[in-house]
């Protein structure tokens, strides 16, 4: 028996929820970033799974989108980490509980 699309989706959902858990519950900015990256990976997994289980198209759309998504995630990670460093320099902390300058 080979795995169906369903189980892939379940795994992806689990990965996504774990990422969300990380992003929601940690204080450290880097953790939040990791959580977000994890959610993105889960999304990519979905793309690939859907591509694999659906009738083939030319060009392979799902794969393409996953590639672009990874590229964008990389860019996001770079900028996000740079922001963390900049914030750290300024406030001497990366604890997001203390970063509430935008509080209305």
């Amino acid at each position: 028996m080979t795995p169906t699309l369903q189980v892939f989706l379940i795994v992806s959902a689990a990965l996504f929820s774990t990422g969300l858990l990380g992003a929601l519950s940690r204080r450290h900015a880097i953790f939040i970033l990791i959580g977000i990256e994890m959610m993105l990976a889960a999304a990519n997994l979905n793309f690939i799974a859907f591509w694999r289980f659906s009738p083939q198209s030319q060009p392979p759309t799902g794969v393409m989108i996953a590639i672009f998504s990874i590229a964008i995630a990389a860019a996001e990670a770079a900028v996000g980490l740079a922001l963390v460093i900049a914030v750290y320099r300024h406030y001497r902390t990366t604890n997001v509980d203390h970063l509430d300058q935008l509080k209305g």
Partner: protein
Amino acid sequence: MSSAAFVLIAMVTLAAALAAATLQKLMHATLSFAVALVGVAAFFFLLGAEFVGLVLVFVYIGAVAVLIVFTILLTRRDVGKDRGANWGGALLAVAVFGGLAWAVFKTQSVAIGAPHIRALTVKRIGEALMTSYVWPLQCVGLLLTAALIGALVLVMEEKR
């Protein structure tokens, strides 16, 4: 595509992900995160998207994870133990998972096996990138450049 491989990979991936989300030490969490990504890459291989899997490994483990480590080292003074998972976040995460899982199970059309497909060669991907996806490719290139410059500007020391 074998079930055994799938179960194995899934267990490793999810365990690593959970560790990444809950471990108190930042460094440990980062390493777990890398492991989880390897798991995801393995899924990609399993699904026949080897190229994407490789890209994921290169980009994430080769670049992002390293970047995270560097960042941890750069902000070392602040880096120590973080609190673990808290109840509100866990509750929400579980709720979201429950919702998603319910939706997945509910949807009949996804309970299908994998069809037989033509192997996805790098050549095909390359052709697609250079023909129908040439504009998005250029845009991503521009985006990456901008992100590069932006990150540089952000971390540059302010002039005194």
